[in-house]
C-alpha cells in the first residue's frame, strides 16, 4: 500500500493527473469523514475535503517522506478544519456578544456552535443514537475532537496522531483520556 501510494505521488509530481486522481480516491472518504465529524455538516465537510486535496496538489513537491502520505494528508485536512472552526467562532462572536463559557477546560467550549439544520444524512440515518454520538463529539473542543476521531474512527496509532497534530505522544494520550471522559458523561445514559 505504502509503495503503491508513493508511486502515485511520484507520478503526480511529474504532472500525471490521473495518478493524482487515484491518490484522491484512496483518501477522499477518510478526509471527508474527518471533516464531517469535525464540522458537523456535509457541505462544509466536502468543501474542506476539496480544499485539502487542492493543497496537497499545490504542495506535491514539498512532501516530506519521513512521514506517511496519509499522515501528511490528514495533517493538512485537520489544520483546515481547525481553521474553519476558528473562523466560525469569530463570525459568531461578531454576531452576538454572548459571553464565553469558561472554566470547563475548553471541553464544552463549542457546545453552541453546531449547525442545527436538517441534513440529508438525518433523513436516512434516522438513528437517534448516531445523532447523539455525533453531537457529543461536536461538543468537544476541536483539539479533543481531532484525537478522538483519528483514534476511534480512523483507528490510527497514538504515534500517527502525534505526527498529524504535531504534538508529543504523551499529550495525545492525555487528550484521548480526557476526550473519553467527556464523551462518557454525555453518552452514558444512552
Amino acid at each position, binding site marked *: 500500500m505504502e509503495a503503491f501510494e508513493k508511486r502515485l505521488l511520484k507520478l503526480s509530481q511529474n*504532472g500525471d493527473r490521473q495518478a493524482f486522481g487515484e491518490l484522491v480516491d484512496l483518501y477522499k472518504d477518510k478526509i*471527508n469523514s474527518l471533516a464531517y*465529524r469535525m464540522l458537523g455538516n*456535509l457541505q462544509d465537510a466536502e468543501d474542506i475535503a476539496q480544499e485539502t486535496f487542492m493543497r496537497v496538489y499545490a504542495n506535491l513537491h514539498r512532501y516530506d517522506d519521513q512521514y506517511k502520505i496519509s499522515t501528511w494528508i490528514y495533517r493538512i485536512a485537520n489544520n483546515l478544519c481547525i481553521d474553519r472552526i476558528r473562523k466560525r467562532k469569530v463570525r459568531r462572536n461578531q454576531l452576538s456578544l454572548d459571553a464565553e463559557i469558561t472554566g470547563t477546560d475548553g471541553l464544552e467550549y463549542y457546545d453552541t456552535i453546531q449547525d442545527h439544520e436538517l441534513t440529508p444524512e438525518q433523513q436516512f440515518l434516522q438513528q437517534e443514537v*448516531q445523532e447523539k454520538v455525533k453531537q457529543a463529539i461536536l461538543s468537544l473542543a476541536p483539539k479533543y475532537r481531532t484525537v478522538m476521531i483519528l483514534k476511534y474512527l480512523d483507528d490510527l496509532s497514538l504515534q500517527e496522531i502525534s505526527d498529524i497534530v504535531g504534538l508529543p505522544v504523551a499529550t495525545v494520550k492525555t487528550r484521548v483520556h480526557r476526550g473519553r471522559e467527556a*464523551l462518557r458523561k454525555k453518552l452514558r445514559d444512552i
Partner: protein
Amino acid sequence: MSCTEIQSQIHDYLDGELSHQEESRFKEHLNTCAKCHQHLLELEKTIALVQSLSHVRTTRDFTEKLLARLPKEKKRQVFAFWMKKHPLVVAASIFILFMIGSSIFSWYGEDRELQISSNALASHSLIVEDGYVYVPEDKVIEGDLIVKHGNIKVSGIVKGNVIAIDGKVLLSSTAHIAGKTEEVNQLLDWIWYKIKSFGYAVVTP
C-alpha cells in the same frame, strides 16, 4: 487498592498499558467495587458508540470536480520542477541564449564598414577594390580569409577557410581553397556561425 488509584489506571487499562500484575489487581478491585466497574463499562460503551459511527462518503463526482479545479499551469510547474532537477541544462540554455543575444546585437550594432581578417594583410597580397577583396592568381594566403560587409573574389590559393559575412564569395577557375567556403548572409546564419566558432574555440584551444 483505592478507587482513586483505579481511576488513574482505568485509561491505561483501556490503552492496554497495564502490566500483568497491575491488571490482575485492577480487575480484582472491579469485582468488589460496583462504582469503578460501572465507570469502566461506561467508558467501554462510549468507545463502542464512537466506533459505530460510519464513514461519510463524498459525493460521486468529487474527484472529477477536484481535477477540474486544479490550476491549468501544470506544464509550467512541471517545467519548474524539471529545471530544478537539471541545473546544467538550464545553465547551458541560458548561456546559448546569451550568445544568441550578443550575436544579434553585434550583427546590427556594428557599422557596415568592410572588415578583413587575415594573416595575409601584412604581405599586401590582397587587393581591396569596390567592396571586393581580391586574391590575385599568383598569390598564396597562408591562413583563413574572413571578410565582413564585403565580397570575396578568389583567383589564387587560400590554404585556410574563406568566409564572407554579409557578402558573397566568387571563385575563378584558377582558385584553390584548402578549407571551406562559406557565406554568412542571414542573421540566423550569423548566430549559428558565432556559436560554431565559439565551439571550435572551446574544443581546440
